[in-house]
């Protein structure tokens, strides 16, 4: 296993240190996984065989056991309400259409059976399932990389328009959206779980610099549309 954090080392460190993994744990603040493999959300899993051939392109995947943060990790900040935030059951929407318990079994089947596994796709199937990459994808990646660079350089005023541009150009790329939202929320909350707040905090609804937020966007989706079922 190789894990890739779609954020910088500072954001990744407390989680990696808490997990103390014995596999390579990498950081990818520029979201290279998006451009290289077609990752658009997290968690996302890519299967690569012994010859370096992709046998399943990026898809939602889970370990098959309940995941919780260690005790004392922090408290989620109170979220604000925007005019675009209808009351929806976010947890139900995020969990809809998924056989999360079955994903680890599928991986185990491939580990045991290799190319004979019914979950191992042919090269043609891998390419057919791979995300389209129109010119807008390159534009979105350029804007996102520039936004990250400007944000790290302290130019928040210049970074936000480029984040917004990346969101408009590739609207179904959740990593671009959630990363940007998390940066602002983290800066305003200051706590260890501020990054999980991907929208305006309570009392700051009028000061949200992005064109949307997680709650508003999630509410536009139907069942099974956030994490498409691929197994």
């Amino acid at each position: 296993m190789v894990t890739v954090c779609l954020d910088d080392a500072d954001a990744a460190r407390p989680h990696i240190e808490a997990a103390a993994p014995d596999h390579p744990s990498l950081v990818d603040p520029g979201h290279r996984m998006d451009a290289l493999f077609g990752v658009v959300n997290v968690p996302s899993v890519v299967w690569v065989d012994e010859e370096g051939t992709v046998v399943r392109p990026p898809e939602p995947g889970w370990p098959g056991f309940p995941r919780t943060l260690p005790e004392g990790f922090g408290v989620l900040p109170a979220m604000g309400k925007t005019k675009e935030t209808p009351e929806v059951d976010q947890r139900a929407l995020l969990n809809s259409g998924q056989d999360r318990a079955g994903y680890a079994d599928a991986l185990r089947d491939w580990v045991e059976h290799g190319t004979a596994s019914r979950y191992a796709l042919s090269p043609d199937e891998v390419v057919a399932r791979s995300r389209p990459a129109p010119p807008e994808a390159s534009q979105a990646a350029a804007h996102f990389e520039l936004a990250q660079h400007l944000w790290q350089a302290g130019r928040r005023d210049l970074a936000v328009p480029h984040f917004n541009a990346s969101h408009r150009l590739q609207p179904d790329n959740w990593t671009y959206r959630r990363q940007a939202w998390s940066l602002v929320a983290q800066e305003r909350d200051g706590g260890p779980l501020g990054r999980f707040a991907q929208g305006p905090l309570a009392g700051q609804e009028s000061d949200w610099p992005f064109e949307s937020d997680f709650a508003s966007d999630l509410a536009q989706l139907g069942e099974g549309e956030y994490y498409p079922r691929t197994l």
Partner: protein
Amino acid sequence: MLCAMIADTLDLTPEAFAAGTGWAIKPQGACRGDACVPLGGGPFDAAATAERLRMAVVHEPAAGLWAIGPDTLGDRALTTATAPDLELPRLDGTPFRLAELRGQKVAIVSWAPW
């Protein structure tokens, strides 16, 4: 597709372009692996080369920065099933390449602290 690069000028040398984009500039054109895209004659022009490789170019004049996006020659993120040459740093900054695990089955799990 490879990844976006940031530069403070589009007046890039071929070497700088190659280092940032993964596309080497050779007499036969811009090349990556076994694939080469003819560039035509004349001195190296990063903007023209980016256009040939269908790479977006984005400018932020207030910061004097340019971003060159990944190529979109193949119309898909994966144009073959051969895994891209992934190279990313570990937490301590040391580099890791996916090729180091050749000979093993690998599950690459992308996650985020948000």
